[in-house]
């Protein structure tokens, strides 16, 4: 460490001490610690904790430290109402930043409007959720689907697609966009089938895949169990077509072992991104959490970046006043593990997307990257 760095550290420690005297800026994080999101929620909380720790170590925001208020939304609408209510009206947070299910987001939005705080949503979702207080820094179908379809048509010569999903808004939203995109690209969809979210018997659908003569499959199931059962049953039925899975993440793919081999995934974050920002982020996560570390993923990294985006907006606005922060949010940008992120397009963010393929050992190798994929017209009226 040279003398300059030491000086910097000392000043930052001093700044941090003085900042502690000031009132903290509170960030509410309603997240599914129980229920469907409970598998991924701990990684999201860890990412938020690292961002806050880093920012506070460098003097906080406008001389004030950041403080997290975590609340369990139970991954659903009823829990989200309670969580948002207590965060906004009892803890009086200055902003809400969180990864949640679509049901929880929809239930929380009216409360966000009523309490008038900025809300940055950090989960990929089916798109077209528009509210003047809501900003999104994760992907929508318009960004995730094209890499998979383009690769299958261009590189694998696929002409007939079979779409399989779980019967809920995200599953149907993703596949209906995929269908229109496939047809626009000149290929056809020979089948589109859904199973309820708790369904685990894909037998009939798999038989249809075989009889329909499809040459590529795209699936969008709920995460966890349905995704695993479908993949296992497809593999045991001997289906070895190009297989794009819109719902599998790197961590799940790794634990699925041999069955996941060859699956294509499309994401805005994979751990293998070769940039100094990503390497620094991964090193900091490992250092902070050690053995407790949950692998950073496409849901936790946007959470980390969103806190920095909020910081940038508050600094630009010069205060935590909601109207001023909302005005600043679409104009600021932050260079994080996923690259340069700015929620400049109708409250959504153009993102670099990565098409990855799961290898035999469970790792994901990036086949191709697509720079700054546009989210499309999500909210033309905002």
């Amino acid at each position, binding site marked *: 460490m040279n003398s300059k760095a030491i000086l910097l550290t000392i000043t930052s420690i001093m700044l941090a001490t003085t900042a502690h005297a000031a009132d903290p800026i509170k960030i509410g994080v309603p997240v599914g610690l129980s229920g469907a999101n409970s598998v991924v929620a701990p990684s999201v909380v860890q990412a938020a904790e690292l961002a806050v720790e880093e920012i506070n170590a460098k003097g906080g925001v406008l001389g004030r430290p950041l403080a997290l208020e975590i609340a369990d939304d139970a991954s659903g609408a009823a829990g989200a109402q309670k969580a948002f209510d207590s965060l906004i009206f009892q803890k009086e947070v200055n902003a809400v930043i969180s990864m949640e299910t679509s049901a929880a987001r929809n239930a929380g939005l009216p409360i966000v409007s009523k309490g008038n705080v900025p809300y940055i949503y950090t989960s990929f979702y089916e798109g077209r959720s528009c509210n003047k207080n809501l900003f999104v820094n994760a992907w929508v179908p318009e960004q995730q689907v094209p890499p998979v379809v383009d690769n299958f048509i261009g590189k694998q010569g696929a002409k007939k697609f079979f779409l399989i999903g779980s019967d809920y808004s995200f599953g149907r939203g993703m596949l209906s966009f995929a269908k229109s995109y496939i047809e626009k690209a000149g290929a056809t969809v020979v089948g589109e089938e859904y*199973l309820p979210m708790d369904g685990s018997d894909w037998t009939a659908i798999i038989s249809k895949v075989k009889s329909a003569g499809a040459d590529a499959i795209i699936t969008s199931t709920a995460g966890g169990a349905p995704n695993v059962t479908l993949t296992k049953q497809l593999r045991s039925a001997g289906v070895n077509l190009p297989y794009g899975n819109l719902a599998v993440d790197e961590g799940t793919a790794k634990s699925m072992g041999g069955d996941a081999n060859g699956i294509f995934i499309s994401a805005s974050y994979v751990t293998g991104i070769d940039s100094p920002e990503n390497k620094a982020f991964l090193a900091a996560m490992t250092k902070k959490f050690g053995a407790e570390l949950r692998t950073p993923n496409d849901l936790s990294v946007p959470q980390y970046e969103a806190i920095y985006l909020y910081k940038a907006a508050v600094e630009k606005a010069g205060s935590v006043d909601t109207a001023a922060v909302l005005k600043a949010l679409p104009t600021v940008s932050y260079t994080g593990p996923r690259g340069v992120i700015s929620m400049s397009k109708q409250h959504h963010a153009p993102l670099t997307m990565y098409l990855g393929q799961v290898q035999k050992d469970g790792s994901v190798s990036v086949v191709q990257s697509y720079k700054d994929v546009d989210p499309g017209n999500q909210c033309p009226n905002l």
Partner: protein
Amino acid sequence: MTLLLDIISTAAILFIVAAGLLAIFGVLKIINFAHGAWLTVGAYCAVVTTELGLNPWFALPLAFILGALLGGLTERFIVRPLYRRPLDAILATWGLGIVIGQLITLWFGRDVHFTTALMQGTVDVLGTSYSFYRLFAVLAALAIGLGFAFLLDGTRLGLSAQAVIMNEALARALGIDTEKVRLATFMAGAGLAALAGVLLAPMTSVDPNMGVPWLTGAFMLVMVAGTSFGALAVACLLFGAAQVVVSTFLSPILGGITVAVLCAITLRIRPKWFARA
């Protein structure tokens, strides 16, 4: 051809899952709502053998023995005082199921687990390639069915069990140790449930709640079938076929509720239909 294979293998899987529940209901007249939990325990036996790097087939005897042991404890300490209060027994076993589910969550976490496949690949059946494992499930179902037929008709325990099924008071008067018969049946039923869990593991995801949807299906089938293994086989074939046909030709979403709806209708109009078959 695929349709036919789908029907047979679906029916076989239903039968494997419901057999343990039927064994207990047949002799003890008690619905064991912890059935789903035993099934989950069995599946986690497969997870443990996978993690220890043992031969995946080893999970089968391990699950049966563990299931039978846990079943024996349950019978002795929870179910035995409740034979005259079948409704309370339902509550008690349901509660036990929740406790087991939570214990598994504490130990293994909520995440989905993965097991080594017992067998992989496909075979050609009259020109169509079909999952090898699903065909194996048919054999397993046959083995369980025939095994039970032999146990009931060919052994002393089976004879005693039949006597208990027909007239318990008389059986006791004849000197049959009904308590022992009950204990043995409960252990066999729980062991079978755990065995079913191992057999299901390669086809489904293994998580702490995996048993619940299977419990519902098995419960409906057993209600329709009554106390006879033959009736259960017929019910599984018919309702399994209906499920596959509805899923294939109408919608898989409707297919998912077919078994439950048909069972409800059957119970409404002819409660003893299959039981007489």
